[in-house]
C-alpha cells in the first residue's frame, strides 16, 4: 500500500525497507514530528482525526502523481491517527530513485500535497489545558478570513 493511515507508532526501518531496491542509488525520507510549541503556545500532545475512506483514496492518488511526475522507483507515505505525544512521528514519506534529484523532488511534492489535500485535522492540546483545531497553513493562505481564531 503506497499510502496508509496508522493508529500505532510508525516503524521507520520497515518503511525504509519497503522502498529498498537494487536499482536505486538514492533514498530520501521526510519525518514530521510532534513539536512542543506552535504559535507561541506550549504543546503537550496532538490528536489527529482522519476521514479514512477519502484520505486513503486521495493519498494513493498523490503517490501515483509523484510516480508520474518524477523519475522515482518507489514511494510510500504513512500518516498517524489518534493521540500523539511530543517527539512521535506524525507522518513519514519514503522515496527511492536511481538518482537523488528526483527523490528529493518527489518527497517534497508528496509531503506538501499530503498537508493540503487530505482530510486530516490536527488538534493541539496545550500545557495550559486548552485545546484547539489547527489549520495554520490554510489560515495563512486565507489571511484568517474564516471564523477560526487563535486563543
Amino acid at each position, binding site marked *: 500500500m503506497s499510502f496508509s493511515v496508522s493508529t500505532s507508532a510508525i516503524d521507520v526501518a520497515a518503511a525504509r525497507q519497503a522502498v529498498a531496491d537494487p536499482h536505486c542509488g538514492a533514498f530520501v525520507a521526510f519525518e514530521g514530528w510532534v513539536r512542543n510549541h506552535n504559535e507561541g503556545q506550549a504543546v503537550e500532545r496532538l490528536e489527529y482525526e482522519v476521514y479514512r475512506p*477519502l484520505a486513503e483514496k486521495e493519498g494513493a492518488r498523490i503517490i501515483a502523481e509523484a510516480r508520474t511526475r518524477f523519475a522515482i522507483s518507489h514511494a510510500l507515505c504513512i500518516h498517524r491517527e489518534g493521540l500523539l505525544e511530543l517527539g512521535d512521528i506524525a507522518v513519514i514519506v519514503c522515496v527511492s530513485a536511481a538518482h537523488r534529484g528526483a527523490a528529493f523532488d518527489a518527497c517534497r511534492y508528496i509531503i506538501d500535497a499530503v498537508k493540503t489535500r*487530505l482530510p*486530516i*485535522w*490536527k488538534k493541539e492540546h496545550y500545557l495550559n489545558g486548552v485545546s484547539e483545531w489547527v*489549520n495554520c*497553513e*490554510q489560515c495563512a493562505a486565507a489571511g484568517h478570513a*474564516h471564523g477560526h481564531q487563535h486563543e
Partner: protein
Amino acid sequence: MKTRVRYFALFREQAGCGSETVDWSGGTAAELFALMAASHPLLKTQAAALVAVNDEMSAWDTVLSDDDEVLFFPPVAGG
C-alpha cells in the same frame, strides 16, 4: 429532496453533531453549507473549507442530487 450531511473536526464541534439528514429544495454544495450555517449559529463559512460528495472531493458549485451524502471538511492540517 433529502441530503445526508456529515461534519468533521472543527465543523462537527460547531454544528454540535457529526451528521444529520436535511430535507430541502436542493441546490449546490455551497448553498447547502449556507443553509446549515443558518441553522447552526456557530458554524461559519471558512475560506479554505473543502467539500466532498459521495466520498469524492468536489467543487462548491456542484449541484446535488437526491440521496447524495455531502461531507463538509474544515481547513485540513495533516502532517
